[in-house]
């Protein structure tokens, strides 16, 4: 590097010195300008009960734009805080006589001083104006909110406590759902306990068996779509009935054979009736076991009995007539005994 000439050195050194001086002075001027020192401004005094959060130097904004700056906060003779705001003349026309000023405290971030001008046609705010400052405090509601929240939490606690009605209801629902999920299903829920459900199921099973047995024994067939027992009995007894409908007219020899056949037929019919009766006996024994739920079946059985009785009476009358017209056996007590 070649050494610089004296002239070069002098020029460069002076350049640096001038640059430094310019920077120093320029910075000071810039800061003064940034702080609004070169602008003619007008004074606005805002009065509020509580200036908490307000600081000297904070901005007064209008629609988000800075209008002015708080230059002084003092406690006035009236016990209120007086915020003195300097507003540059160039911006002052945004503030009207009807403008409203608010001091808003936020949970996060600084306090904000805002101006709202609703009617822009109103006259401009004069210099040295005094206006009330409204407070909008986001933290003012916190004690009330906290109190309500605590109440709510207490209610919730009593609601969810181990002996609360809600928990008891939930436990009952759980027991019911367990019973629903068990083998007995909804029956266990309806009966209240498992034993009751078991008994009901047994009763239903018994009833089914009973109905099946009744069908089998009375009708001799399976369970569905069969003629009634009375009809079948009538069918069986009808040949004897037709015989009885003919009045006896002494013992003519020609009819002896016919009577004999008739008697045989009657005997067979009666034997069948006897068999039916023995079956009925067992049916009746079974019927005794029927519970109150089986009344419909027992009504049928009563009708059946009535019809059987009627048939028996008819048969009895037939026998008596036979004894009277056919003196082969003098003793009716001996039963039906043919020679």
């Amino acid at each position, binding site marked *: 590097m070649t050494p610089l000439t004296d002239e070069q050195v002098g020029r460069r050194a002076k350049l640096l010195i001038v640059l*430094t001086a310019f920077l120093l002075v320029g910075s000071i001027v810039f800061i003064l300008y940034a702080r609004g020192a070169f602008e003619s401004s007008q004074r606005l005094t805002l009065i509020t009960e509580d200036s908490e959060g307000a600081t000297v130097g904070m901005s007064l904004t209008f629609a988000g734009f800075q209008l002015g700056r708080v230059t002084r906060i003092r406690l006035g003779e009236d016990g209120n805080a007086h915020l003195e705001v300097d507003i540059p003349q160039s911006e002052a026309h945004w503030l009207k006589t009807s403008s409203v000023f608010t001091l808003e405290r936020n949970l996060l971030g600084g306090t904000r001083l805002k101006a709202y001008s609703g009617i822009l046609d109103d006259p401009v705010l004069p210099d040295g104006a005094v206006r009330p400052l409204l407070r909008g405090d986001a933290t003012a509601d916190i004690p009330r909110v906290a109190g309500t929240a605590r109440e709510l939490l207490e209610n919730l606690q009593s609601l969810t406590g181990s002996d609360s009605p809600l928990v008891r209801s939930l436990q009952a629902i759980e027991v019911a759902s367990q019973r629903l999920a068990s083998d007995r299903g909804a029956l266990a829920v309806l009966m209240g306990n498992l034993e009751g459900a078991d008994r009901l199921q047994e009763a239903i099973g018994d009833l089914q068996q009973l109905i099946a047995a009744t069908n089998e024994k009375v009708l001799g067939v399976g369970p569905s779509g069969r003629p009634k027992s009375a009809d079948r009995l009538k069918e069986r007894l009808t040949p004897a009935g037709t015989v009885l409908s003919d009045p006896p007219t002494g013992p003519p020899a020609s009819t002896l054979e016919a009577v004999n056949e008739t008697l045989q037929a009657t005997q067979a019919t009666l034997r069948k009736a006897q068999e039916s009766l023995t079956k009925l006996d067992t049916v009746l024994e079974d019927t005794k076991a029927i519970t109150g739920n089986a009344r419909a079946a027992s009504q049928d059985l009563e009708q059946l009995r009535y019809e059987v009785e009627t048939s028996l009476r008819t048969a009895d009358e037939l026998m008596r007539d036979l004894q009277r017209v056919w003196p082969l056996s003098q003793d009716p007590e001996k039963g039906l005994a043919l020679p």
Partner: protein
Amino acid sequence: MIQRNWLYQTGHASLEMGKLFVRMFAASGSQKVMAWPAIERAIAERCLPVLPGFLLLSSLLSLVIIRIVTVTAQSYGLSEFALEVLVRTLVLELLPLYSAIFVALRISLPARRAHSDIAQAWAGLLASLLFTGLASILAAALAYLMVYGLSPWGLGSYIGAVGKIFTPAMSFIFLMKTLAFSLAVALLPAGLAKANELQAFTRLIALLLLVEAVSLVGNYA
């Protein structure tokens, strides 16, 4: 023993620095005329060559910090505070300290035995003031560009925000701190004529941190 030695050295260095300070400002007119060419030469030969490197480094440092602060502020939804944080940390605290260290390491300390001490002191003082000013303006401009881009419409609110930060007290302390840094950098070689490199660097850092601590107390306490 060590403490007595340390005390002696510190006292001696302070005395030498005081002597240099007096000679810098209280020299008679004829001496000043004698010293002026040497001062000019020191300024031109020592300050100018390191200026581009310094500007490059300081803008790189500023960009990194600006990027970190703006991205962090954005992720928390606090972008409006990013510029204020940047001006406070970068312009007010970090860059003056960085400039002083840079000037001391590149201009003052290496030539502490070579040049005329008064010329060297003036060069250091001027370099420290100039570099601090340039770095601060560069950082402020970079911060604006990073936040607003090339749009001129943020200028008004940005100037307002800067004006809000530089209250009279803050501005005065900033000015005093910068002057103190510059004087420390300028006078330090006189007190460290016999010290080795490591001792010189340690003492430089200690002195600058002392000034920084005092300014922080003044600003925020």
